[in-house]
């Protein structure tokens, strides 16, 4: 793919994971020079040129103006009874360059430029600052733009964000630019919008707030010409969150969230000092630093995902999740524990509250399920064991009809029975495994199964049904990752998938340690063993691009810790915080409430054992997530696969 002038457009590829952008340097430089020469009168035509380039490259245009602004900040020294005027220069996103004249930049603006992963954009920057600037999106931009954009000129940067996350952008031509306020936030959403920050379960959220940390040196910012100010004298006297100070008499408007909500805080440290963000009374789960995911796989050197105090070096961003817990009206403080302030009777100026709105009972998620080797009429709807049914809390329907995709029983040798399922409720994609081997559908179904190489679908494989394309593929080849000793395959009987990271969580039927105790299950040369009451996790090195490639196993959930021994897990559901499962038999020792063999049982707030500890923990006793009696009270034991949406 080439642009009209022959400049190669860099698109997402394996070697541009953190560097998926570049400036269309040749074009831009020429345009800049022309623009500088013809000055303001030709601004519109320059703009047209940029837009034309954008169209030719099928890129989406984003328009950003850089211009002076003024702010009025509550003065901590007077307890907020007066305000302090602050002159600054900032970026502001607009619909088109024509809006720049009226656009008003905001100091410490938390409103992000919102991009989507994998989409190509032209970031068109209209410079009305009075001096040359550039745009550097830290973590997104490739080679630095050392030429810059002349005053009154417009220039364009091509960006194709490779991964979701929160990013800081700034003008980096001169260290004074960022101090003056030429900074902003870019949020990259996952390619498939799914209500998460990073396409993984742990980043699932319902409310989000960008928190920009910055500071102001009044004598520098309000100087007649900041460019002649001596930076050796730079010493902040206002400390800001989102361009505002917390003072005794003037609070920064709170984030309103209901109790139980998962709030995504996107910290952006746009200050020139390191900062430590604390949330009082809530744990912060770190989802990502600088757009890089913490996947919690326990790799050596990985930082904790759960902290009280998030340390952010200057320029760093962090995405963290807090789950709001409180009564209506409660105030939960988010603040910089460095306690920076210019007032004595103060808690520090960088303080922002989460105000608890309603206390909302959690909504029961939709339940996707498959039956075990049977056909039943559930609430009047016939559901077969090769189908995936959807229970929305009141009615049941067939969500995935196996027969319409060739999963048709031919007794006795060829019985199709889905015994593990994962559904992505947004895309409608279905991941599943079969209870026993089954001949790959042919004839009218050959086309949709063409990508599956095997003649016979194996019980230790996980297949993916792409809902948009209507085709099947092998998601996880059980034999390739060691779920087989060549003689015996391990039937995968429960699965939960993270479509982005490729991390696949599952249980198997039967023990995977041989009778003499020699483990034979290997993945990438790592000998491994576990049993059928455990939940296993497979972490592929290449992520979703190659789930069956090299990777690593671990035990996510050790059933022995919960009194399970000979019992067999036959459904696995993973949420951001919980591990859920059902059993092929009734739960032993009959805790209260009693769990039937087809009920979905939840370990809330599951923690894998850290370090040398031997015990998994839940934050509460095992709970009933879904009682299958609502479907068919007299036929316990007929559900063998669950997924929640």
């Amino acid at each position, binding site marked *: 793919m080439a642009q009209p002038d022959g400049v190669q457009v860099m698109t997402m590829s394996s070697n541009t994971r953190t560097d998926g952008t570049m400036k269309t340097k040749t074009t831009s430089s020429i345009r800049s020079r022309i623009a500088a020469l013809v000055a303001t009168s030709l601004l519109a035509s320059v703009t047209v040129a940029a837009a034309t380039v954008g169209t030719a490259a099928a890129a989406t245009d984003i328009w950003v103006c850089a211009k002076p602004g003024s702010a009025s900040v509550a003065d901590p020294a007077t307890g907020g009874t007066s305000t302090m005027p602050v002159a600054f220069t900032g970026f502001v996103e607009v619909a088109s360059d024509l809006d720049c004249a009226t656009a008003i930049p905001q100091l410490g603006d938390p409103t992000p430029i919102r991009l989507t992963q994998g989409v190509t954009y032209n970031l068109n920057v209209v410079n009305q600052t009075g001096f040359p600037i550039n745009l550097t999106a830290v973590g997104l931009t490739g080679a630095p733009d050392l030429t810059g954009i002349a005053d009154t000129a417009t220039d364009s940067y091509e960006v194709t964000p490779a991964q979701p996350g929160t990013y800081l952008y700034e003008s980096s031509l001169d260290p004074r630019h960022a101090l003056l306020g030429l900074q902003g936030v870019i949020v990259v959403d996952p390619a498939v919008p799914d209500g998460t920050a990073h396409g993984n379960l742990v980043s699932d959220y319902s409310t989000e707030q960008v928190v920009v940390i910055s500071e102001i040196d009044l004598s520098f910012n309000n100087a007649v010409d900041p460019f002649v100010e001596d930076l050796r004298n730079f010493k902040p006297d206002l400390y800001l969150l989102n361009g505002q100070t917390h003072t005794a008499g003037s609070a920064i408007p709170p984030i309103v969230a209901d109790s139980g909500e998962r709030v995504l805080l996107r910290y952006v440290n746009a200050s020139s000092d390191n900062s430590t963000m604390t949330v009082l009374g*809530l744990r912060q789960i770190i989802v990502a630093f600088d757009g890089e995911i913490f996947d919690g796989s*326990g790799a050596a050197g990985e930082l904790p995902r*759960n902290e*009280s*105090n998030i*340390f952010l070096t200057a320029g760093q961003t962090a995405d963290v999740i807090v789950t709001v817990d409180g009564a209506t009206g409660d105030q939960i403080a988010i603040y910089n524990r460095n306690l*920076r302030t210019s007032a*004595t009777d103060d808690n520090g100026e960088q303080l922002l509250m989460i105000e608890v709105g309603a206390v909302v009972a959690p909504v029961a998620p939709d339940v996707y399920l498959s039956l075990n080797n049977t056909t039943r009429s559930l609430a009047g709807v016939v559901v077969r064991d090769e189908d995936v049914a959807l229970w929305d809390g009141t009615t049941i329907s067939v969500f995935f009809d196996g027969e319409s995709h060739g999963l048709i029983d031919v007794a006795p040798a060829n019985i199709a029975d889905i015994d593990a399922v994962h559904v992505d409720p947004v895309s409608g994609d279905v991941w599943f495994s079969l209870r026993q081997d089954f001949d790959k559908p042919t004839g009218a179904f050959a086309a949709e199964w063409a990508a599956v190489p095997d003649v016979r679908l194996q019980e230790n494989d996980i297949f993916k049904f792409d809902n948009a394309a209507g085709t099947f593929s092998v998601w996880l080849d059980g034999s390739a990752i060691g779920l087989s000793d060549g003689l015996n395959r391990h039937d995968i009987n429960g699965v939960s998938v993270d479509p982005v990271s490729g991390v696949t969580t599952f249980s198997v039927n039967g023990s995977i340690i041989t009778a003499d105790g020699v483990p034979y299950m290997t993945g990438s040369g790592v000998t491994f063993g576990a049993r059928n009451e455990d939940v296993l996790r497979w972490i592929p090195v290449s992520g979703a691009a190659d789930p069956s490639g090299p990777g690593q196993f671990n035990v996510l959930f050790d059933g022995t810790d919960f009194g399970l021994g000979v019992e067999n897990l036959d459904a696995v559901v993973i949420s951001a915080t919980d591990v859920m499962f059902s059993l092929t038999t009734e739960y032993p020792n009959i805790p209260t409430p009693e769990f039937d063999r087809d009920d979905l049982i939840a370990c809330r707030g599951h923690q894998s054992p*850290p370090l040398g500890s031997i015990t998994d923990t839940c934050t509460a006793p095992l709970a009933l997530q879904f009682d299958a009696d609502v479907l068919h009270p007299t036929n316990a034991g007929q559900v063998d696969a669950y997924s929640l949406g």
Partner: protein
Amino acid sequence: MKLPIRSKLAGILSVAVMAGGLAAGLSSGAPASANGGNSTIRCETGGVGTGGAVEFNLEARDGYISFPDGNTVYTWSYALAGAPYLQFPGPTLCVDEGDLVRVNLTNPPHGDNLSGGIPADFTSILFPGQTGVTATGGTAGLLTQEVDAGVPGDMVTYEFTASAPGTYLYESGTDQAVQVQMGLFGGLVVYPSAGRGFVYDGVNFDTENEFLLIFHEIDPGLHVGIELNSLAGLTGDAVLDGYDPVSRHNRYWTINGRSFPDVIAPNDTPVLPTQPYGGLVQINAGDPDGAYIQLPALVRYANAGLDNHPFHPHGNSLRIIAQDARPFPDEIEAYTETVAAGQTYDLLAEWNDVEAWQGTGAPIGVTLPALNNTMFKGGVTFYSGDADLGQQQQLPLDVTTFTTCGEYYFPWHSHALQEIQNFDEGFGGMLTLWRVDPPKEFDADAGQWLSPTACR
């Protein structure tokens, strides 16, 4: 207000205190004796309150602390109710996982003691990292219920269940930028259900070698400003006037409220009555024969300061196992860790056959220069005269060594190096030592493994 009389008295006593303080590290021989009377964590365990709560009665107090350069600094901190002095940092509260913890905070009036309550409008305690903290009594503040410092007997009761083991801070939640800087903080340790020999379930350590190092920094300008205002009879917010936080310029950096070399004086040294906690990290090397399994020492960092501090030992790496009382999925071997303001870390420290010392490997075998070719600055040294652990050799006649049994000493300090000085006098500040004693030996009389007799 009786402040003027009290302060003068305190001032006189402080001169004596500071003189002793300087001497504590340098002239009392070995910094601390092994396995007893040393700088291991000193827990306050509290009483049993209603509902089976572990109950602590704390007072906000003012008073004076001293520094090795001879300076005396007016300070606010906490003390157990009825204690003769404030203590800086506040008492280390130790509880067990699952305990219902209750802390009652008061701000006593000034009496004839050296110290009384603090001359603020309000004060309070936060328990960062704890969930479900309730506060009853007092007055609603920005972050929690607050004690009205001007109302005698006003009390706030804080309660929470210690749900997660690890290392925590507690600190003022009122006018934090001033009150935390003035010293209103302390350590809180939650031991796991596995017991007090464990830092987290499954991770045990040598209980004789458990250390809590609380970091802080002091701008004496703030403290003097408040002291002078309180001497002038001002209280409340007025006492804070005259100090500009923007001009905050730290002059002292402390570990457990002391600057080096006071840091390495043992717990409860009588010359530092308001700074009872030492900070010398002392461990035994592993037994090279394997007859005795030497568990690692546990070092807990807690940064109560307003600045971030990069902190590291010399001589060996550490096993970093947790931050903010949350265990890492896997431990990290490292030596420098930036402890950000408010953060805590848990680390395991070991010394096993490092550099093939006399244990299973060959002795280090350094050829020493002749005695008449050596000199030691100031005539004092932490060197034993021999490169090998547990060995002592002759030193020049005019040299005093602080070693008792051929132990090793290494610096363990903030690597923001301007922080290891006392008002421009170095070495000082946020610096302690790591003392490595030879492996424990079986003491037949005591029937247990103990440090070599010469080290005790």
